[in-house]
């Protein structure tokens, strides 16, 4: 497989996943911002901060929903906006058009310019629909890949890109919570804190799954265990790391050689393994999240090096 093709597939998946992640982040911000007293806490700013987009908010004062919709949904000049991500995902897909199935391409190609010229007011009014639309696009694409795409190396690179981005999204969401309110060690005592923690679950479509695993009680320790360590929830960091490992393994078999990226993914795996039974929470969630973010970034760089991107 051409190295450029591998790079395009990897980034196509990352951008598409990032578009969806950002959509989920906005949903979470919205849930948090409607809680009483939120105006003083600047929840929306934390959403910008975890996406690295704080600098796009010029002028003082708190960050508003309008700002976030403008910056994270519509701004074509912000490389992290959903609009940019969709355009880039498609551009990456277009340059490896021959490696995608017809259905995958159609999923990428359909209405990729939807947000061009959208006005902020209109976007806010239709926000839930738009967010759903973004999530659906990503679902359709993944579904098309699931049943149609050849399981060659390109598929592995695509899945790895997606898994890295999804893991990072979960990590960032956990960090939003950190910025809003330092984690407490007790049972979440109702009120705002309860809602904030459950908003994280909601944004990741994990509330129901959480109940099945931990019963009805929300504790920060359990929630972070669920999102970091649990290996059955597909948006948990551990699950994503399992995915990266299995696809990297396949690549190693196909290429007949192990590279530095294989060591790093094992390192992340170990880190999560040692965080079981609440250990990760005891050691400090924020620090663990930051470490995981750093390691996954390094992993992405190493994959590019190992396969000559």
């Amino acid at each position, binding site marked *: 497989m051409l*190295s450029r093709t*591998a790079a395009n597939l990897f980034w196509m998946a990352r951008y598409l996943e990032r578009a969806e992640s950002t959509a989920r982040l906005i949903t979470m911000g919205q849930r948090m911002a409607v809680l009483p007293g939120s105006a003083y806490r600047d929840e929306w700013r934390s959403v910008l901060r975890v996406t690295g987009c704080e600098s796009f908010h010029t002028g003082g004062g708190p960050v508003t929903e309008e700002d976030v919709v403008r910056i994270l949904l519509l701004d074509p000049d912000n490389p992290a906006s959903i609009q940019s991500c969709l355009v880039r995902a498609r551009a990456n897909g*277009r340059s490896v*058009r*021959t490696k995608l199935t*017809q259905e995958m391409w*159609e999923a990428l190609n359909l209405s990729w310019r939807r947000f061009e010229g959208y006005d902020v007011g209109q976007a806010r009014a239709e926000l839930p629909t738009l967010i759903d639309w973004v999530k659906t696009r990503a679902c359709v694409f993944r579904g098309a890949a699931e049943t149609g795409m050849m399981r060659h190396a390109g598929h592995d690179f695509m899945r790895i890109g997606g898994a890295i981005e999804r893991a990072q999204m979960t990590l960032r969401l956990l960090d939003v919570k950190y910025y809003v309110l330092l984690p407490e060690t007790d049972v979440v005592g109702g009120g705002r804190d309860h809602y904030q923690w459950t908003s994280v679950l909601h944004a990741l479509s994990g509330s129901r799954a959480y109940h099945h695993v931990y019963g009805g009680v929300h504790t920060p320790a359990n929630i972070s265990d669920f999102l970091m360590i649990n290996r059955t929830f597909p948006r948990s960091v551990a699950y994503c790391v399992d995915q990266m490992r299995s696809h990297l393994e396949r690549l190693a078999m*196909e290429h007949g050689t192990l590279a530095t990226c294989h060591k790093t993914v094992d390192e992340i795996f170990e880190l999560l393994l040692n965080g079981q039974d609440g250990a990760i929470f005891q050691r400090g969630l924020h620090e663990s999240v930051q470490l995981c973010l750093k390691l996954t970034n390094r992993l992405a760089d190493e994959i590019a090096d190992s396969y000559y991107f």
Partner: protein
Amino acid sequence: MSFFEMQAPDGAIRACYAEVKRWIDETGIEGLHRRMDEAEAIFRRIGITFAVYGEGGDPERLIPFDLLPRVFSRLEWQRLEQGIRQRAQALNAFLYDVYHRGEILRAGHIPQELVYLNPAFRPEMLGFDPPGRVYSHIVGIDIVRTGPEAFEVLEDNCRTPSGVSYMLENREIMTRMFPGLFAKGLVTPVDNYPALLLKTLKEVAPPACKGDPVVVLLTPGSLNSAYYEHSFLADLMGIELVEPMDLFVENDRVWKKTTAGPRLVDVIYRRIDDDYLDPLAFRPDSLLGVPGLFHAYRAGGVTLCSAPGAGIADDKAIYVYVPEMIRFYLGEEPILANIPTWQCGDAEGLAYVLAHLGELVAKEVHGSGGYGMLIGPHATKAEIAAYADRIRANPGGFIAQPTLELSTVPTLGETAVVQRHADFRPFCLVGEQMRLVPGGLTRVALTEGSLVVNSSQGGGVKDTWVLRS
């Protein structure tokens, strides 16, 4: 009065159009419009687009598709096919000649300076024998029709003619939407084109190639106007679609960069102009291209299809001499005629053209895509005067042809089937042998009376049928 391909002046439907006419009547104009919308939606979703240079607006515009097929009878096609093969063979013979002894020039049939001073001539190619002596592996010949028996060649395309993807997709869409039309087996299929193309490309593998040749399609990238076609053809041939940056040259062999390290490439079907192929051989300021590619080619390490310098054969100034080539190399009379052409480069021609510019179609010798041309009968006095000034400033850069009564084909109008002018581009493959699928691209001017069919100028395309009997 233009020749209408569907219907004789007395109202009788020409035999080859019987099936199409029956289908039009059965479906009705409204029904056809409904289906047309469906077809457009399919095209848009698949992403068959054609970027138009210098027009702004949508960078991935859809090329308009007209639902009504253009039909050739078996007999008409047989004659076309012979003429096309003959021409493709002569053009390749000419290319071999001008890059070797130049017999046709020595014999005085073509002025030497027209070849050797032509920017499309590549002195770098002199004395080199490309595999199979083939220079132009895909010859696209633009043909117009002016009467029931009159087919004439408008121009030749020996470099990298585009449009074959439309031939294939138009048929695909038609078969998908109207299976009934094809169920009777009246229409000859064209879908083996990609397989024939791959076969052709493998036949011209370089001397250094061992085993099954590795073929790639080299595209300038996804911003190129024909990128869709590049990816489409690579896909159907099952070969890698590469960009210049994916390739490098070492020890006179070409390698592609893969996730497992470098891998050999034998044959490159390139859809990049000569100028941008190799900055070491051609334009040094080009950021595109694969340094050392041309050297590897000359050393027999890789085959470039088409060969650099193939463009000298399709130059508009050389076009006039193609009938001469056919006589000279093949000892035959041309089956397809040229359109009478005045060369502004010679004094007699210039005088005639300037005196009759209002009746002629004038073109730049090196132009393409319908840009920079003047259609005298449709131009204003001021436009004609301005164009005359341009010709006077550089006579050698222009040719002129009579305004032809191009035939018309049935086209779906708002409320009725209307007549629109069309041309035809078949694609002749040249490897160890010549291959031609029965069909080609019909381009149609969608504006009433317009003679410009180029997709860059708002022309459309339609399916082209060659009947089995």
